[in-house]
C-alpha cells in the first residue's frame, strides 16, 4: 500500500476494464514521472469525454452533437440500416469501406441472464426509423454468439411483416488465413455453411 494520492490513483486505474493491480501500479508511476503538460492533457481528455460526448439521437452511436458524423453525412444513403450491438462495431464495419448506409446501435444484445430484454435496447427507436418507409434493407450485424443470434432473430421476426429485406452477416473462415489454423468450431460451421460454386 502506498500513501494518499498515489494509492488513490492506483485504485481508480484498477477499476478500469483490462487493468489489473500490477498494470495500475505501473501506469500510476508512469503518470507520476511524466511531464505535467502531458498529464494535464490526459486529465482534460477525461473531462471532455464525459462533458462533450453524447449519444446520437438517431442511431445512438457516440457523437459530439445532436447527431453523429455518419447520420449527418449527406453522401450516405438512407436505404439500408446496419444494426450493431456497440459503437465499436460501427468503427469495425466502417474500416471495411463496404457500407455506405446508416447504422443503428442497440446498446447490447438480448440477454436474460443479465436481465437485458428488448425494452432495454434501442429497438423501439429502430422501429420508428423503419416506419418512415425510406429504408429498403435491414442488415443484422449483431455478434455471432448465442445472444447476438437471438437478437437478430427477434428483430427479423419483428421487421419481416413490414416487407423489408432483412439480411444477416455471414460467418465462416477468416480471409488470408490458413485452413489448418482455424479452430474446429469455426471450421465446422464454415463446412455447414458451404456454398455451391
Amino acid at each position: 500500500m502506498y500513501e494518499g494520492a498515489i494509492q488513490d490513483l492506483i485504485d481508480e486505474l484498477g477499476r478500469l476494464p483490462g487493468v489489473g493491480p500490477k498494470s495500475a501500479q505501473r501506469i500510476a508511476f508512469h503518470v507520476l514521472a511524466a511531464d505535467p503538460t502531458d498529464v494535464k492533457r490526459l486529465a482534460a481528455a477525461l473531462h471532455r469525454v464525459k462533458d462533450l460526448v453524447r449519444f446520437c439521437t438517431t442511431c445512438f452511436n457516440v457523437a459530439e452533437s445532436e447527431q453523429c458524423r455518419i447520420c449527418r453525412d449527406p453522401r450516405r444513403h438512407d436505404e439500408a440500416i446496419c444494426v450493431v450491438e456497440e459503437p465499436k462495431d460501427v468503427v469495425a464495419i466502417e474500416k471495411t469501406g463496404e457500407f455506405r448506409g446508416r447504422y443503428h446501435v442497440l446498446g447490447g444484445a438480448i440477454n436474460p441472464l443479465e436481465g437485458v430484454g428488448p425494452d432495454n435496447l434501442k429497438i423501439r427507436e429502430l422501429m420508428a426509423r423503419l416506419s418512415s418507409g425510406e429504408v429498403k434493407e435491414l442488415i443484422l450485424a449483431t455478434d455471432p454468439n448465442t445472444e447476438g443470434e437471438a437478437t437478430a432473430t427477434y428483430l427479423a421476426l419483428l421487421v419481416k411483416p413490414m416487407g423489408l429485406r432483412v439480411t444477416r452477416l455471414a460467418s465462416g473462415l477468416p480471409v488470408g488465413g490458413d485452413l489448418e489454423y482455424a479452430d474446429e468450431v469455426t471450421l465446422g460451421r464454415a463446412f455447414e455453411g458451404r456454398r455451391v460454386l
Partner: protein
Amino acid sequence: MYVRRLELVDFRSYPRVVVEFEPGPGVFVGSNGVGKTNLVEALGYVATLSSHRVSTDAPLVRIGAQRAVVRCAVVHEGRELLVELQIEPGKANKARLGRAPTTRPRDILGALRLVLFAPEDLSLVRGEPEGRRRFLDDLLVARQPRFAAVRSDYERVLKQRNALLRTAYLTRRVKGSGGDLSTLDVWDAHLAEHGSRLWAARLELTAALAPHVERAYDAVAAGKGTARVRYHSRNETTETAPQELEKVLAEALKNGRPQEVERGVTLAGPHRDDLSLLLGEMPVKGYASHGESWSFALAMKLAAYELLRAEGIEPVLVLDDVFAELDAGRRERLADLVGGAEQVLVTCAVDADVPARLRGARYAVREGEVEHG
C-alpha cells in the same frame, strides 16, 4: 496410439516417478492404496483435462507441494508427441504440446485418446440420467470435435431461456402478474434448432453404439441376456433427421409452454433425455444384480472403445480394478476381447487375477514408486 512414457511430479502420492511403457498389455500390480489408480488417473487427466475421481484439482497435488506435473510421451502412427500438463489448484492449468506451450490447455485434447473404465463407472448404470447424457456427449465430441460447439451452444441457449422463464416466474410471484416473455418465441426457435442437432447426433450415436454394447456385454456376462441401449426422450418420435426433430421439438415447446411458464423452467429438449439400458426387456436400473449392472457399465465403456476403434481412432484402453470383479471364465473372455488392443493398461491387487492372454509388461507398484518387472 500408445503411451510410451509417463512422468509424474508431485501428483497424488508420487513425489516423482517415471514409467516406461510398451505397446500391448501392461499390468500394474500392488496392494490396495499404494497408488495404482493414481497412475491411470494422471493419464485420464491428460486425455480429458478432468479426473474421473474428483471434481476439483486440489486432491491431485501431493500434500505440501505447490503444483503437480504430468508429462506423457504418446506414440501415434509411429510419431512420438510430448504432452505436459501443470496442475496448480486455484490457477489455470498450463499445457505444453511438443516443446511449445499452448495458448489454451484444451489444445492438448486429442493428443492422447483414452477410454478408461473404473469402479466409479458403475454410476453409468445406477446413477442419474445426467451421467449417461455426459457419456454420450463426451463420446460425440471424441468422434467429431465440432460437437463440442453444438453442445455448448445448446447449453448456452438453455441457460438463457431458463433465465427468462425464471425471471418472469419470480416477477409474477412478487407482483401477481406480468413478467416479460416477449423474446420467448426467439429462444424457442433457437432451442429447437440447437437441441435438434444434439438430439439427432445422440440418436445416431446410440444406433452406432448399440451393436457394440450387445457384443461386449455378451463377452463379459457370457450369454446372460441381451444388453440393449435405447435413446429415450419425453418427445418420442420415429424421426431421426435434424430438420424433422427440430419440428418435433418446436411443437413440444409450443404445447408445453403453459406448463413451462407456470414452473419457470425448460421441460422439453435433450437436457431431459436419457439412455435407457435394458437386459432383455427389463430395465437394468432396479432389476439387475450388482454383477449384471457392473458388467453393463463395463460393456458401455468397451463399446465406446470398439466404436472409436472401428472408426479409425485407436485409443488407449485402461481397465482399473476390473478383473477382481469377474469369475475365471469371464476374465478369459474379457482378455480375448481386449487382448488385441494397441495398448491396454490394467490395474489389479492380485497378479493371478489377470489372465495369461494379458501377460505383457508387469509393473510392481509400491508406496510412491513403480518398478518395471
